């Protein structure tokens, strides 16, 4: 399945955050919701996806001073396809100066034999701000994960803020203290808002200032509930 979905949000003359363009492409279904403040769009998967062979892409443009909250409604479960081909999903966010986006998808579960690639590219201009969460779950309960590669790239005015690639599903590396330390869930949240809080950390969580401004919170745990709770501790330390 190949899908290209698009979303464009602008701030109108009356100061409202308006969805100007919304193009769903099955299985990427975008559902706008009514709110008084920020534009709120739910990202719904209208089919069992991603399956091996799927190629899904979502592009999001947010105009000057517009605000968008893009939330997932259910976990993404990466499954193998019939022919062993990899699946790919990409999200590209383009933020104009003053734009503000919260991108909060539900967890991605890498099932056994899945081979999935996830790409997030965020291009910020001027003082745009982005909050982006990612929760990766290695396999369903009692299941060894297939393979997943993630690539997160964020820049502001074409200068790099974050570039991080991760490979999951290599048993030796997953178990290594260097990569995932044998934990089943990795949760991260990126705040690209020019903040530079003091570093803080606790048992399997940290909140660290990025070199070019902004914060990364990270948590590792054996289950998603604990990972998200630890991520909450890290976010609270951010102040």
């Amino acid at each position: 399945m190949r899908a290209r979905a698009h979303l464009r949000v602008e701030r109108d003359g009356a100061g409202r955050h308006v969805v100007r363009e919304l193009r769903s492409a099955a299985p990427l279904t975008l559902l706008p919701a009514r709110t008084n403040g920020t534009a709120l769009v739910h990202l719904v998967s209208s089919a069992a996806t991603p399956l091996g062979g799927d190629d899904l892409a979502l592009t999001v443009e947010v105009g000057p001073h517009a605000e968008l909250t893009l939330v997932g409604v259910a976990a993404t479960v990466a499954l193998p396809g019939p022919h062993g081909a990899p699946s790919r999903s990409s999200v590209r966010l383009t933020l104009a100066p003053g734009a503000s986006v919260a991108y909060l998808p539900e967890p991605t579960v890498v099932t056994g034999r899945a081979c999935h690639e996830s790409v997030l590219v965020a291009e910020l201009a001027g003082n745009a701000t982005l909050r982006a969460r990612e929760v990766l779950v290695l396999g369903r309960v009692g299941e060894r994960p297939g393979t997943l590669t993630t690539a997160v790239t964020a820049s502001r005015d074409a200068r790099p803020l974050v570039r991080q690639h991760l490979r999951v599903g290599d048993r030796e590396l997953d178990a290594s203290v260097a990569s995932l330390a044998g934990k089943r869930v990795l949760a991260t949240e990126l705040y690209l808002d020019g903040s530079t809080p003091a570093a803080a950390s606790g048992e399997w969580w940290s909140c660290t200032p990025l070199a070019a401004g902004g914060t990364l919170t990270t948590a590792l745990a054996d289950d998603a509930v604990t990972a998200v709770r630890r991520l909450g501790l890290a976010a609270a330390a951010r102040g």
Partner: protein
Amino acid sequence: MSVLALMLADSRFPGGGHAHSGGLEEAAARGLVRTEADLPAFLSGRLRTAGVLAAVFAAAAAHSAAGRVDNWSTLDEELDARTPSSAQRSASRAQGRATARAAAAMAVPSVDNVCGSTLRVLLAATPRPHHAIVLGAVIASPPDAALVAAYLSVSGPASASVRLLGLDPLRVNGSLAALEPLLRSVAADAAASAALDPAALPAPGAPALDLLAEEHDRHHREEVRLFAS
């Protein structure tokens, strides 16, 4: 490999490497590494993540040094973007600064004529350069710089394990030697990417190592720790 590269890879090189355990001290404090049997997985995991990143940037910096390309600020911010942990950035810059000082004081013709001017340009652009970038700038050969950076990413933690846990130095050294094929392939891949646009260089993450580095830094400030990272 040049004598200069050998000196930089030597644990007795006065570049401040002895002060860093590469996350081993925090891993040992948590009981994640206890015996000689735990060490190979720690070292290979470190080599395949932080080691790859260091090798990639050492090779890219060596490529710039060899071609007299002044892209030091770009390499610096690209490596920063790949090092989300502030504790890891500090450790890298502390070692980079100390290594640059030691290299600048090496009064041999190859340093004065070749890397001396490179170092001056590098330090003018980035007064506290990252360790991997200094290695590349000084060694100026992508394959050698990559191999030295990859080796240093595991040799320091290996010797730290002897000091922290009292592990058998011969078995620890054996574990280090067993990484030889992996060291070669990491260095070869890094050298192959040396000429890429810095924005396109690999960006391997190490989430647990970063967490340990942040926790180590906090403990280091609150209580006595042997190593700075």
